[in-house]
């Protein structure tokens, strides 16, 4: 038996009424103590920040005698930037793409000079692009060249949607640029073969990993060195091997305070503190533990056996600047689209 409450003529709720009601309820919820920091991050950083956050909370409590909570939002780096622009109220961003922070700066949400506000271009850690191959490296993958051979199938995230994928693309291009001495035709045919070997394009780094590991698709997974090592740790070195190519790209992991929201959330100090914390030795050690390369010399030395010497190309050196690279390669009808056309 269904019983309905009596229909009140007043029910004919107006747009504003409904919206206000819902909105008021949600903002009432957001006002609750203790203070809550929202970190918007790229999608393969879940475990990393799940480890960082408790440490930070303890550190903050020790320094300021205030207990806080940290919430995480993860997604493709670009998706996250879009969400923030559309109103996702993140206090800080910890991305894997300089461009995605730039977009926020252009929108006035992040300070113009954000790269100068923290050391190393506001990148507390960095990584590069590496390969994960199946046990015994049956296809003999050593370098980018090997990835363009017939019969080698690749898995990496879609460069259109994933910063991770973009690095992979730029790394391959950077390698080809070096190998063919800037000969456009050779580079393009190299890239065409490279992209032609892709078996699956997932939207994000995690999807690609799942495809490779759980679904058993592809011969090579191309992703961040840190991720590659994590997978090997997670699934055991029995099944997979890591190959770090002699030449690859420098992947920076920029961080920034989302000024606009941090202020509005009255979290400015907390947000700054969070980013500061990432540069502390304690945090750097934690980051290195997650196979990210760090700048803290002491910690870097400690973990040096984990990170093979490799030549890291800078995006700015090859492509001029991030905006240039984005425009030329990833815009609609850009180089990537051209290469994939057939």
């Amino acid at each position, binding site marked *: 038996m269904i019983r309905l409450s009596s229909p009140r003529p007043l029910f*004919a709720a107006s747009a504003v009424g409904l919206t206000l009601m819902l909105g008021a309820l949600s903002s009432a919820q957001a006002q609750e103590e203790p203070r809550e920091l929202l970190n918007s991050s790229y999608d393969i950083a879940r475990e990393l920040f799940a480890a960082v956050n408790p440490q930070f909370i303890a550190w903050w409590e020790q320094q300021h005698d205030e207990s806080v909570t940290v919430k995480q939002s993860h997604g493709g780096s670009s998706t996250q930037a879009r969400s923030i622009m559309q109103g996702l109220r993140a206090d800080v961003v910890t991305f894997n793409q300089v461009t995605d922070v730039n*977009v926020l700066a252009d929108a006035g949400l992040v300070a113009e000079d954000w790269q100068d506000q923290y050391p190393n271009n506001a990148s507390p850690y960095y990584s590069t692009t590496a390969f994960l191959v199946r046990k015994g490296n049956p296809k003999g993958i050593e370098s980018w060249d090997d990835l363009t051979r017939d019969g080698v199938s690749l898995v990496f995230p*879609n460069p259109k949607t994933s910063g991770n994928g973009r690095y992979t693309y730029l790394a391959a291009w950077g390698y080809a640029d070096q190998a063919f001495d800037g000969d456009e035709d050779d580079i393009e045919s190299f890239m065409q073969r490279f992209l032609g070997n892709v078996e699956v394009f997932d939207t994000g780094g995690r999807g690609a990993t799942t495809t490779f590991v*759980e679904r058993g698709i592809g011969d090579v997974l191309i992703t961040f060195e840190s991720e590659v090592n994590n997978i090997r740790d997670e699934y055991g070195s029995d099944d997979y091997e890591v190959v770090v190519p002699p030449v690859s790209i420098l992947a920076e992991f920029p961080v920034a305070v989302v000024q606009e929201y941090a202020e509005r959330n009255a979290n400015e100090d907390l947000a700054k503190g969070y980013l500061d914390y990432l540069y502390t030795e304690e945090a750097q050690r934690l980051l290195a533990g997650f196979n990210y390369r760090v700048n803290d010399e002491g910690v870097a030395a400690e973990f040096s056996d984990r990170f093979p010497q490799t030549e890291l190309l800078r995006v700015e050196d090859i492509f001029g600047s991030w905006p240039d690279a984005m425009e030329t390669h990833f815009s609609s009808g850009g180089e990537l689209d051209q290469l994939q056309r057939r």
Partner: protein
Amino acid sequence: MIVSAFGLGRQRRVLPGFGLSLGVSLTFVSLILLLPLTSLVGQLSQLSWSQYWFLITDPRLLASYGVTLLGAGVAALFNAAFGLLMAWVLVRYDFPGKRLVDALMDLPFALPTAVAGVTLATLYSSNGWIGRLLDPLGLSVAYTWVGIALAMAFTSIPFVVRTVQPVLEDLPAEVDEAAVTLGARDGHAFRRVILPYLWPALVTGTGLAFVRSLGEFGAVIFIAGGKPYETEITSLMIFVKLQEYDYAGASAVASIVLATSLALLLAINLWQGRFIKRLHGGRP
């Protein structure tokens, strides 16, 4: 304004509640359905025709239309056959567990599409329960268009079953008997007599399954490879464009999907109306 205009006829309305229900319905429809949809139109109106045309004819997008149509087409055809079989078996035969099977038919509507997608991807990937059996045969389902069609088929199974079933139930026994007393063999009788009766329901169900498949997202993205020109579906393209902050592009593609779906629904309704008219009288 609108309410008072409609209210002119109030004297003739016997039952109460016209104003109230009209108010509630219009408010709801405007707020929940129309207002958001106008924002899509608003977004589109910022584009010129040539820009719009350029956006929706991007080769990669064109390929995704193909993949989506192929997947949805195969899924709809599969469901036409499977749905007809299931409706037939559930109406015409008695067997142990029939009620259970009948209930199970609605599973795809009850099960969240994301769960369906994750599960199908797990089952059909090369180390999944089914994928493992297919792999040695050189058949791969996950991350190919077959997988897309499979996920689409799964989520739209109930459409055909549930539209054909009641029609078959209502089919008088005399129709069978008339055919049999006239000497028709099963095959002939089914093709020439039963099938035409089911035809409107079958086409409607298949059409709905097709429309649903065109827009399916949750179940498909887990099993679609997302490889440009090969396993990229149109819904995914919208999602991708959203992630590139390309709202104009996303809206343009969305408008295509929306228009196609609405046109198909309308066509189904019109066709059904005409068909039914012919069967239930109305002299030409």
